[in-house]
């Protein structure tokens, strides 16, 4: 089998070599160290570490909340990107500048700010509590924090695609009688799907790994609002490195599978355009 570059750009061997070395150093090597470290447990110990009910509950909370946060951001991030690209209004640049803020803020600050707002005595928490809803110290709180810190991904992935999208596609739909919702669903949405999937995948992955902001608002009740990264931290603090890396390894494998799946769907979605 011969490996060839799709587009015939020269320097394929060199660039592939660089890619592989870079990925090995920055990604594979650290992961390998996790595998080696956790292998000290032996198969049996490993299984016990990762199938502990408290750990399983942690996985459930982490994956579920990250999924919901990434989905929320896919919807609202898309709307946000749409508004920023398609409308001209005073304060547009200001809002555009705000988008990256969740990245710039230390995550602990985010966590404390959210906890203050949503605690039973906070601005939002108080009216919510009056309605019998509990935001902070519940799964809702975790989702809030994860949504907040992953806002930029979908917006920034979709925005350039929307900006580049030629208006004539919409006009062609309009001339053929399509209503605005039909144009969005049948003409625009397929164009932005690959970018939307990228944004979703990035949000999801980032949310899975988030620790700093969540611990302040989650309440960290075992089996209920304890996220997997926190469990890892707890084990590390007890100098239980092997079990900590075992838990981490399962998370890594699961996220890799999910990201791989998203990439597959995405490359299928954009294959029509490449021809």
């Amino acid at each position: 089998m011969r490996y060839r570059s799709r587009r015939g750009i020269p320097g394929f061997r060199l660039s592939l070599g660089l890619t592989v070395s870079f990925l090995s150093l920055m990604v594979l090597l650290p992961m390998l160290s996790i595998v080696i470290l956790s292998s000290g447990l032996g198969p049996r110990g490993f299984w016990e570490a990762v199938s502990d009910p408290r750990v399983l509950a942690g996985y459930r909370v982490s994956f579920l909340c990250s999924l919901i946060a990434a989905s929320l951001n896919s919807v609202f991030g898309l709307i946000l990107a749409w508004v920023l690209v398609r409308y001209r209004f005073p304060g547009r640049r200001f809002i555009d500048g705000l988008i990256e803020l969740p990245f710039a803020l230390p995550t602990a600050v985010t966590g404390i700010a959210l906890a203050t707002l949503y605690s039973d005595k906070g601005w939002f928490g108080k009216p919510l509590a009056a309605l019998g809803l509990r935001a902070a110290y519940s799964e809702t709180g975790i989702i809030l924090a994860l949504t907040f810190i992953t806002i930029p991904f979908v917006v920034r992935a979709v925005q350039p695609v929307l900006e580049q999208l030629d208006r004539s596609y919409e006009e062609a739909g309009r001339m053929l009688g399509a209503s605005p919702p039909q144009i969005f669903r049948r003409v625009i949405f397929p164009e932005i799907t690959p970018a939307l999937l990228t944004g979703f995948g990035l949000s999801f992955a980032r949310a899975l790994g988030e620790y700093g902001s969540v611990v302040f608002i989650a309440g960290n009740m075992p089996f209920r609002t304890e996220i997997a990264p926190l469990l890892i931290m707890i084990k590390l603090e007890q100098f239980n490195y092997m079990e900590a890396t075992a838990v981490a390894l399962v998370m890594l494998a699961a996220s890799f599978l999910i990201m791989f799946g998203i990439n597959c769907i995405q490359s299928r979605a954009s294959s029509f355009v490449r021809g």
Partner: protein
Amino acid sequence: MYVNLEHISKRFDGFQAVREVSFGIRRGRLAALLGPSGSGKTTILRMIAGLEDPDSGDIRIDGLRVNDIEPSRRGIGFVFQNYALFRYMTVFDNIAFGLTIKKEKPGRIRERVGELLQLIGMSGLEKRYPAQLSGGQKQRVAFARALAPNPRLLLLDEPFAAIDAKVRRELRAWLREMIRSLGLTSIFVTHDQDEAIEVADEIIVTNQGRVEQMGSSLELYQSPATPFVVEFIGASTPVPEISALKGFDGTPPGAGGAVRPEFVSVYAPDEQVQYAHTEEAIVRSIAFRGDSLELGLTLKGLPLTAAYSLARAPLAVGDAVRLLIRHLYLFDGGQVRLLQNSAYGNGPSENFYSI
């Protein structure tokens, strides 16, 4: 008139893109909007389609004022300059788009799309995506997609601009035949005069947001209404001072105009000339133009172009020849007048095109 524009104007934030444009097109005719870049062709086309609203004026199709009618209800098929094929849909789905929006029955859609695929000679390619088509094929799919809902008027914005020169000639002929055989009233935009002449029944010449003249290519060529049309259609060389030329001494001083190559008769040095009013000129270049020679000449410092028959006495670069400017266009305000050399006596000549 089937399609009628009456005093249409359009401004884009402070820029007057279209000024007081009026014209009419008869049913079944194929008209070209021809003009230089930025002259408002696309804007006029988009206003007819309803993709842009005119600031003033009326647009009528088949007698009905359509200004306030939704684009999709005007019965118009539109072919975009970049074709705007939906990239994530197959050829079939692209062509079927307008029909599925209208909620036609699937059987009926399949039948109509099959018919159109046959018409554009692309049966068997319906499962392809636009990225897998050549430029010419994309154009034909865009054409079929616009035709699918049976429009009564077809608008095409620079339909050949994105196609390389070789395929373009073929497609031009194809599109003209196709539109003629369907009897569909059509307007297409172009900035290429050869294209307009070859494809269109009538040409509407635009310049700086105005219509300069409308007519068949022969009309535009033989009786141009404005100096712009003289310069834009066919070949001509400008003459800044007409009264300096022999035989036109009666023209008021300062008046300018233009000369077409076929308005100039060239006589070899030893040839007998029956007319007075010939002038001496030097041959600067000789180019072969298929059926005749094109001579580049200078007359008292004024560069001129003239056609010269292959059957006449051969000339060489540097020869001093005699020439007679039989006619020229006088630019008089925004108007154009055809003047005749006084060597022919006074009074207008009708058959000035015969040599």
